[in-house]
């Protein structure tokens, strides 16, 4: 799947980025938000996420944990190392029932956990809440 993007190039617009190696998840989340006014970016890997951040993405990131190559926590670590976290709200996006992290030093950069499967209504409310927080 290509990265679907309805964003303008305006650097001041906050958007939503979903980072997940599962195309079905990416498509589902994209479908929920595609008619909204904010950019919705999809990344299949931690590296794609970092590439989008390098291009100036600001907003809410839903970060899958279990991904091949760089996992979600390693990606968060890279986000912090690059100083990209300033204009982000990061929520892990996980199928695990009992999420926790061995990387305790990263917990202050992750504001929330959203578990999969998710209720579409709840996800929309949360994303809206966090986008409002960023404004």
């Amino acid at each position: 799947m290509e990265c679907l993007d309805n964003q303008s190039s305006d650097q001041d617009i906050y958007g939503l980025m979903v980072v997940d190696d599962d195309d079905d998840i990416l498509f589902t989340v994209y479908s929920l938000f595609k008619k909204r006014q904010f950019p919705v970016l999809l990344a299949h890997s931690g590296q794609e996420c970092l590439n989008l951040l390098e291009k100036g993405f600001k907003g809410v990131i839903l970060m899958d944990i279990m991904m091949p190559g760089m996992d979600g926590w390693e990606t968060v670590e890279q986000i912090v190392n690059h100083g990209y976290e300033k204009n982000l709200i990061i929520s892990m996006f996980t199928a695990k029932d009992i999420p926790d992290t061995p990387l305790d030093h990263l917990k202050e950069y992750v504001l929330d956990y959203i578990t999969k499967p998710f209720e579409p209504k709840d996800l929309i409310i949360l994303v809206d809440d966090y986008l409002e927080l960023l404004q």
Partner: protein
Amino acid sequence: MKILIIGSSTGGPRILFDIFSEIPKLPISIILVQHMPQSTTPRLARRLSQICKLDVIIPESGTKLSPGCLYVAPGDNHLILVNNERILLDLSEKVNYVRPSIDVTLFSLKENQDIQLFGIILSGMGNDGAEGMAYLKSIGGYTIVQDPGSCIIKSMPESALKTGKIDAVFTPGQIHDFLSGLAKKG
């Protein structure tokens, strides 16, 4: 005088939005220690100020506590209370891997018969706040944790519960009612 310390981490902000929703001005000083990057602090403070009637303040060193105020500990600073009266921001080493640390704030409280002290631990990873809550109990404070069953991440309230020094386990709705009740008691 009453002082309430709220410790919150991952999964906590959405609970904060629930428990502070439509909370009136309360006769209590509330200090929120949320694990978050520095850049998130003004955003969280602004959001909280939109949903409750408390004066939401990001304190500086020297800020004196006043009732009716919600002080949001700035990211990347420990928040220390001096004589239960004034706030000191501190850039010393991270504690429990975080700064601000909930334990640091709780351990700065002083026993005082004239001041009612309260502590609440919300959702979060790790064990920050657990030892501090036990200390708070030892100096006469009232200790509450969010019901782990209602937490996105249970570790912080569960760690506090393991100390055996927790007075109450509340759902977010009960925490909201507890806060509202503080207003009624005057």
